[in-house]
């Protein structure tokens, strides 16, 4: 694979997709810390819970009281060396009953990135609206 500069590589096991490390090129704390924040907020929505709830109940005795079903067990990032422009993001997910019901780390990361994009769009529109209102008010 020499000569091809990949922006992202996934290192993990082929049999267990729920845990992998994503190695990103040309990234630093700016994106990695923001993605770590949105990864921590990743929850299963209620539609997924209903079909998985009966199976998962065996594993979590206090499940009735959990109002939150997080999808990640561990997420973190590290910069192997400050001179190299690389970031390693590690994602480990819950949900590994069988391979058909597993929650691959790649999907969780993709959902987290989607969420981050939507948060940014919301920030942009709120800020733009507030600036316009301020300008109108103060002519």
């Amino acid at each position, binding site marked *: 694979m020499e000569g091809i500069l990949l922006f992202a590589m996934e290192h993990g096991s082929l049999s267990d997709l729920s845990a992998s490390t994503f190695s990103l090129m040309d990234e630093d*704390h700016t994106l990695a810390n923001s993605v770590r924040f949105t990864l921590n907020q990743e929850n299963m929505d209620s539609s997924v819970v209903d079909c998985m709830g009966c199976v998962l109940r065996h594993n979590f005795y206090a499940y009735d009281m959990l109002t939150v079903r997080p999808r990640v067990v561990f997420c973190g990032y590290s910069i192997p060396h400050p001179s190299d422009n690389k970031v390693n993001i590690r994602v480990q997910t819950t949900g590994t009953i069988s391979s058909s019901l597993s929650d691959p780390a790649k999907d969780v990361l993709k959902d987290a990135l989607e969420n981050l994009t939507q948060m940014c769009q919301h*920030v942009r529109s709120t800020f733009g609206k507030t600036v316009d209102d301020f300008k109108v008010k103060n002519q």
Partner: protein
Amino acid sequence: MSKKVSALDMPDVPMGQLPEHLNRQRTRVTCNADAPIHTDAVHYSGAYSLMGVDNSMGLEKFSKNFKVEIVRLSEDEIEFDMIGIDASLANAFRRILIAEIPTMAIEKVLMVNNTSLIADEVLSHRLGLIPLDADPRLFEYLSENDVPNERNTIVYKLEVSCKKDSPRNTVKTNQLKWLPNGSELEMATLDKSAKVKSYTSFSCSQDSLPEISKKPLGVKHDDIIIAKLGPGQAIELEAHAVKGIGKVHAKWSPVASAWYRMLPEVVLLTEVKGQDAEKLVNKCPVNVFDIEDLGHGDKKAIVANPRACTLCRECIRGVNEELVELGRVKHHFIFTIESTGALSPEELFIEAVKILEEKCDRLLSELS
């Protein structure tokens, strides 16, 4: 034993709410005399799940709680409050504002004549740091193999001299002339019959382009001193400006810094009256406290302006009893952006958010 009840479900702390002290840890940084505590954010959505409290800040919750309030807005500077956003996002915006928003700055300087006291490379370095009044969104990046043309280069000329027997004169940025037609210098070739080439290949004049013709491309400030010339000295050079980002060189940073601080919270733990109140009010150098008259000559101290607190800790230094508790509100940031002039500060912030979105999109397309 039919219904399992959590040991934490006590009557005074109902399910679904955090106890007071935990909520304080989660939302405030407490600044003690020696060091701040509870500084890291509790991000994990399942952190308090066994208490039945949802700690997630997902998209719906974020959209509902997020607010922006603008305190001050001028041509060069903006100060605004962002409420309901996490430190990781606020820091990401700050880092992008400083290092990753593109600007135009002088990169290549073609020296024809420099008999001044300022060395060539020092003069070129100074020229690179001059803020240019050019919208970088109208230009493209110039890479190694590209030909410099009207879409990726701005050409300036500086031709000044100081006559003999006249006093020393100062070269200021208003003497940098914009050349909309491109470079006027000719490349040296051995082949005398070949057509003369210049250092740039402009296919049309830059002021014929619609966006640029509205406002001529110049420097932002006319009175920056570039060099000083003594009698008989002269400078003749051509400078080419290209698009770049602050990560590569600080001359391409569009802000004269951008920073944020968390909203300060000052709480009086006990009632401070009379002489103690006067002492407390005088201790604070930024007038966070003020006196409130209670009548009959009685006065007490109140927190009048917590936003001004700079955390100098004068009010808690060397005191025996604790009168004041200093803290910072975690998800409330006071952002200040000072622009160097190419883009207005509110446009800069919007560009920064766009760049973070682009990073996510690029990563998403790589993963799919």
